[in-house]
């Protein structure tokens, strides 16, 4: 009985995504799509994947992470790096993109484990600040590194392109603060939607598995979970690294959506991590469908308010504060429950 309910709930989530895809296809084919909207489609998929994967860390595992954009950054760079390196070996862009997605997920996931081992020992706000620090370190290092490739292999440097010491055949792939340029634009809305569905499949199945229940037990009461024999480190690392590798996938999508990729504070800084955290919290912690809706609405909102020009970010900030107070303030919650009781009463009387 309960299993059926779960299946229906999950199917609704998948159906919403597929419905969105069909809607967009219809709108695009009938020409009701502005170029602004078209440009937003892939970023929407990216933010949905980011929000869902962060919800795994914050909502399901219960650890506050402020460095999620760092994993996205790793995925974006490793994916774009692979695509550019293999330009001569694998001619098909689609095939390269497919492998790039795998590599981005792998690299971000491995870093998730490497970072998770020391970081997950800390708790609460300290964990948040350390994840923030890791995100900044990743962004900073990728901003300073130069990588080139020639016949004898790869060359690394932290100074400039000339100190790479390559021969005539050498190509510079990562150019310090300029990042990676010339990545083919392989990301499309359809691929984005497929990746969103894949992310949902991974996360929803994890939540409803034995491991997922163990992870939630750790969130609800760590000590109780430990005393019934749940391996805390293993499950924490599992959730954290899966979340990281999904962020890596979003990053690869990001890297292949733009022809030039650079690690700026705007796209991979802590502000981005915080933005995604805002999606997760407003959508509801632990609520996957909520994350999707919040990510879509909050990404569209500043664009829809574009007519208001300079005021749009101001309005966005005010909406954020008011929503937060309305949603979480003890007084507002009380007022809401009183209001709901009244409605219920009226309904009973009417019946």
């Amino acid at each position: 009985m309960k299993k059926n309910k779960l299946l229906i709930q999950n199917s609704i989530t998948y159906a919403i995504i597929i419905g969105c895809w069909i809607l967009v296809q219809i709108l695009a084919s009938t020409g009701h799509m502005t170029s602004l909207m078209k440009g937003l489609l892939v970023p929407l998929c990216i933010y949905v994947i980011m929000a869902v994967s962060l919800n795994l860390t914050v909502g399901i595992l219960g650890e506050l992470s402020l460095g999620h954009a760092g994993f996205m950054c790793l995925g974006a760079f490793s994916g774009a790096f692979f695509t550019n390196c293999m330009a001569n070996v694998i001619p098909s862009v689609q095939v390269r993109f497919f492998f790039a997605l795998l590599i981005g997920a792998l690299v971000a996931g491995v870093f998730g484990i490497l970072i998770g081992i020391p970081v997950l020992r800390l708790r609460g706000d300290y964990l948040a600040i350390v994840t923030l620090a890791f995100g900044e370190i990743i962004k900073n290092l990728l901003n300073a590194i130069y990588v080139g490739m020639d016949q004898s292999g790869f060359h690394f440097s932290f100074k400039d392109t000339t100190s790479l010491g390559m021969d005539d055949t050498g190509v510079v792939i990562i150019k310090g603060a300029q990042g990676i340029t010339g990545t083919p634009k392989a990301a499309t809305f359809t691929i984005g939607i497929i990746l969103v569905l894949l992310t949902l499949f991974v996360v929803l199945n994890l939540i409803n598995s034995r491991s997922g229940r163990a992870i939630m037990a750790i969130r609800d009461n760590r000590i109780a979970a430990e005393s019934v024999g749940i391996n805390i480190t293993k499950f924490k690392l599992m959730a954290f690294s899966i979340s990281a590798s999904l962020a890596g996938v979003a990053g690869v999508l990001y890297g292949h959506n733009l022809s030039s990729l650079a690690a700026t504070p705007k796209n991979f800084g802590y502000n981005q991590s915080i933005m995604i955290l805002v999606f997760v919290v407003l959508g509801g912690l632990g609520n996957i469908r909520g994350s999707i809706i919040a990510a879509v609405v909050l990404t569209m909102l500043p664009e829809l308010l574009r007519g208001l020009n300079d005021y749009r970010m101001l309005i966005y900030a005010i909406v954020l504060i008011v929503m937060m107070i309305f949603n979480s303030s003890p007084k507002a919650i009380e007022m809401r429950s009183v209001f709901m009781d009244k409605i219920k009463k009226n309904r009973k009387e009417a019946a």
Partner: protein
Amino acid sequence: MSFLSYLINGISLGSIYAIIALGYTMVYGIARMLNFAHGDIIMVGGFVIFTCVSTMGFPPLVGVLVAVIACTVLGVMIERVAYKPLRGASSLAVLITAIGVSYLLQNAALLIFGSNARQFTSVVNVPSLKLAGGALSISGVTMVTILTCIIIMAGLMTFINKTKIGQAMLAVSEDTGAATLMGIDVNRTIAVTFAIGSALAAIAGALLCSTYPSLTPYTGSMPGIKAFVAAVFGGIGSIPGALIGGILLGVIENLSKAYISSQLSDAIVFAVLIVVLLVRPTGIMGKKITEKV
């Protein structure tokens, strides 16, 4: 000699971080919240001084005074409107609200002053000091910054240990429930904490913009984050910890800028933070919290 000059500049930068970190650490100690908007109050302070001094032509000291008053009022207002309704809500909700306030301040400043950087005229008119036959030169701003930090630290320690409201702050930070039972007005104590923190942010803004004279709506955000790191570094909630954390951070940042790489200095600062937290999970001066089942 150049090492000494880097060191002194580092201490000066660290003093600014320490003054900002005080705001974070006090608010965290008492209200258990990360006030992400704190960095933007620095920026507001900077713009108030800029308007007073460069646009209206007041003397610099008056500008600083006006900024301190304006930021204090702003800090208390933010607390009253945005944070007070959320008392008792989850810490994540408060954190997101603080982020919202931070966006609000940045974008309000962007609307009023535009995104172009303004040239900030230094509020400090002290001639630089030349030592060792001119080989070592310490600028006036550096000296004033370090001195201000020492005065603020001493003043704050006296305030907390000797006055009634200071003692109330200590009591609230130890145990809010017990403090309420003893008749302490927790709401008022939190408001006072925000007032002090914001006033300090205004002073930090004056010193920061005098050292790095370019003022944009985003001026406060990176120093804010670094000061927050400094507060965690020294042990969040501890006032001497904020001083030690701030100065260590400033020195590490300046020395790594000078000797390793200016691009990687931020990465080095954050890496040191991680190492410190792994060895001492509650910071250098932080209290150890024992866990009860």
